[in-house]
């Protein structure tokens, strides 16, 4: 340390060490991008993207050398890594911005009344009309049935894990709940295909395997269950023990304590988890493709015959050869994303009302 003792004005600066002037950094940036542009366009090896990439590399090298001379090697390394980390963040925002921009610009093209009131029944390759009302109804029915199956099952399972379970068996259940969150959606679809569609459904359908919206709901349940169990479990654990003990002290049996004290206290958090699970399930395509089969016409009955869903509608319109189908696909995608986002944001708002926190 070379701080002069009698110079209080200069002491501060000396202790903080020398800093590279911002002007130098700007200068390095200008030179780096200038050289890069000259290289790319002059030699004809690339366009503006390559210019930015080479420019950034040159800039980082220049900064490393300049800061290294002024502030030392360690400070230079610190500066370069800091810049790289912030660049990673900007880079990740690019696809998000592009997806949102495309969704809005292409998705609003067919965002009209016709789209939400008609199905694809009797719509040929040359017809610009056609809508997704059958897909919207399919999504609502399948996700609704899946929620009806999964919510009680998931909440009860979480209650078992937190309130009753002890020992190795409970640990095994918790472990496999976590593992189950990673099961690919197509596997859930194949499972319901081989179990429900190919083995169970021939019993009631004259020996023929029957696709149905209900089968899709079963597959979505497999995907929703671990999410709901996991989030409910976390919320139940947050309920303070004195609440339970107070209830026991009044002579209330355990099951009643759980239903009247523990679950109501954790309810906002549980609802948040359920809504996030529903949002995730609404966007799943593969299971619906495998067990509901897709359909062009409106089918209100989820227990018989093919159904489609919004996500499957997007997939099938995307693979369609008609020149009007991309617009339909994008509008359906916009509707789907809006649905999922509304659920997600509502879930976060509900979570904000939670009285117990981590």
């Amino acid at each position, binding site marked *: 340390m070379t701080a002069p003792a009698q110079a209080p004005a200069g002491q501060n600066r000396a202790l903080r060490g020398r800093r590279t002037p911002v002007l130098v950094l700007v200068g390095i940036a200008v030179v780096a991008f200038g050289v890069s542009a000259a290289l790319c366009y002059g030699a004809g090896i*690339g366009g503006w*993207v390559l210019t930015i990439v080479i420019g950034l590399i040159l800039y980082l090298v220049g900064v490393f050398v300049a800061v290294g001379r002024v502030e030392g090697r360690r400070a230079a*390394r610190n500066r370069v*890594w*800091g810049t790289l*980390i*912030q660049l*990673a963040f900007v880079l*990740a*925002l690019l*696809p998000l911005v592009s*997806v949102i921009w495309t*969704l809005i610009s292409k998705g609003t093209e067919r965002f009209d009344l016709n789209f939400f009131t008609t199905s694809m029944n009797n719509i040929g390759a040359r017809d610009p009309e056609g809508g997704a009302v059958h897909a919207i109804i399919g999504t609502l029915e399948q996700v609704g049935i899946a929620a009806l199956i999964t919510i009680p*099952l998931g909440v*009860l*399972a979480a*209650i*078992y894990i937190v309130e009753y*379970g002890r020992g190795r068996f*409970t640990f095994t*259940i918790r*472990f*496999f709940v*976590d*593992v*189950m969150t*990673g*099961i*690919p*959606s*197509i*596997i*859930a679809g*194949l*499972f319901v295909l*081989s179990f429900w569609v190919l*083995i169970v459904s021939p019993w009631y359908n004259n020996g023929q395997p029957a696709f149905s919206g209900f089968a899709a709901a079963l597959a979505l349940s*497999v995907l929703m*269950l671990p999410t709901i169990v996991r989030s409910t479990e976390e919320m139940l654990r947050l309920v303070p023990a004195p609440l339970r003990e107070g209830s026991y002290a*009044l*002579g209330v*049996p355990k*099951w*009643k304590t*759980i239903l009247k004290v523990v679950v109501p206290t954790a309810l906002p958090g549980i609802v948040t988890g359920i809504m996030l699970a529903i*949002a995730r399930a609404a*966007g*799943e395509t*593969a299971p619906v*493709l495998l067990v509901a089969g897709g359909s062009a016409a409106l089918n209100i009955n989820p227990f018989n015959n093919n159904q489609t869903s919004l*996500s499957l509608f*997007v*997939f099938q319109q*995307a*693979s369609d050869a008609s020149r009007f189908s*991309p617009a339909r696909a994008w509008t359906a995608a916009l509707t*789907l994303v809006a649905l999922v*986002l509304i659920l*997600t944001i509502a879930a*976060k708002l509900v979570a904000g009302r939670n009285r117990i926190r981590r």
Partner: protein
Amino acid sequence: MVNPDSPPDGGQVGGGWLPRRKGFGAERAFSTVTLLAGAMVLVIIVAITVFLIAKAIPALRANDANFITETEWFPNQSPPTFGIAALAWGTLVSSVIALVVAVPIALGIALYLSHYAYERIATAFGFLIDLLAAVPSVVFGLWGFTVFIEPVRTFSVWLNKYFGWLPFFGGDGPFGRSFMLGGLVLAIMVLPIITALSREVFMQTPTANEEAALSLGATRWEMIRTAVLPYGRPGVVAAVMLGLGRALGETIALALTLGFINEVTLNIIENGGNSIAANIANGFGEADDIGRGALIASGLVLFAITLVVNMAARAVIYRRRDFKESAA
């Protein structure tokens, strides 16, 4: 206060009514119901395995080729010949591309959000990254093969022109619907998963460790390298494995972006490529009985792989959690 629900036949002890201890009461019924619900998870995992095996066996018996080494997928012809080699290869290649691209970027974002950004900005942008995770995969697929394909095609042509002597970037086109496109779309999809978990473990770094590093004169990067990264390593490993699990099983985005050609190739920019999951989604429509069985057999392989990857990831997380609880 009188509780009307507590029965008076439980025996009078100490001046108050105590609930009955034995017998098939509401308590027993409720705890049994919750036990059954909890056991349901294990039942489903076992049922998935059993039913997939049951439906795969007839198709595997009818198969004329070696299921492991055959690269073609013709289960509908007679005799049916199909094998998983090319599909497994494609699954591997697209996942590797996704992870190679996504992991450094995800770690950068996680560090930025946990140690560089102001708290308010970090909260807002953390929410944005979560939104990225909420976008359904079919939307990424649609975006990938209508919008993202253009820059990827330009990039592929450029790579082919200057680095065509490498086996990855060779060939003479057409380019676009390739492993590169599929892998990059996958990268965008696994990014939020890896970011969310690593950010969480980075934020859990004990403040004492960070302050100790800083007080010894470490720069911010040195503090991250010596205090944050070693502490977070198991969590990062687990996050990468969870991302891998997601990438291996992703279906619809790859079904829309890969070229749907079965081949074992190193070339990642030419039209082509297929994966186990994408093959199921694309091949299901024209599959007959044996065809379905064949697809289910390939799904069984995928299930086994993702199960192993996920169990390994969770085991890492659990071990770390034990360590943390004992240290606390």
